[in-house]
């Protein structure tokens, strides 16, 4: 894993500028919300462009939920066996 270091200056209002190379590499746009993680004396900004929980909220809205895992596997198997006939 390669580690690259960049310098940035703290401006008035404690604002910092994300270097151009990083902005382009991670497609960071004005208005994006970034998370600052503080861990053991260091801060980092993991690139999470979208909330991973909200991104799947209701993506199969209204689909039946009362189905057991075994039934799902059995249905897959039935389909497979049938297609091999």
């Amino acid at each position, binding site marked *: 894993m390669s580690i690259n270091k960049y310098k940035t200056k703290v401006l008035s209002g404690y604002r910092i500028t994300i270097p151009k190379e990083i902005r382009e590499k991670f497609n960071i746009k004005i208005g994006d919300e970034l998370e600052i993680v503080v861990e053991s004396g260091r801060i980092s900004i993991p690139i999470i462009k979208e909330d991973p929980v909200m991104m*799947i909220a209701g993506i199969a809205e209204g689909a039946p939920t009362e189905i057991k895992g075994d039934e799902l596997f059995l249905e897959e198997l039935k389909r497979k066996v049938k297609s091999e006939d």
Partner: protein
Amino acid sequence: MKIRFVDAPIFIKWMAAKKKKLSLEAAVSGYILTKIMKGEKAITTTLVKDEVLIWLSRYKASALPKFIQSLKALVYLEIVSPTLSDQEEACSNYGKYPLGISDLINLAVMRRKNINKIYTTDKGYSSASINIIFHELSKEPNFKTFTKNLKNKGFKPSYSYS
């Protein structure tokens, strides 16, 4: 806090959530996943992941990449592969509890990992001395905040939370 197991209904109920009539079960499921996103360490199996994948492929196959993307971003959720020994134990427990074979395999993984708490709505696990954590989460103060955030995002809860 000891690590908890995440069962398939948690993902399924959240993905099947109705925006205009959000059920308490769907909201609690989303709340559990949010806790994990924010740093609560949890565990699930490749079996659970595949159950959810099969379910999603059946009802909304176009959403499969998003589900995988979401799983990859949930860095505090460890996805464990059951071993042949887990499956052997599951077979020996078949019929002992009101659980299907896939749940029994998950149970064997939980026992191997010394986990006795599960996020699920499947009551069958309680007969195997596994504590089900689900409905009580709606009493947590953070659940209220979570619901408010959902309301701000356009969800209409069908339950009262104030």
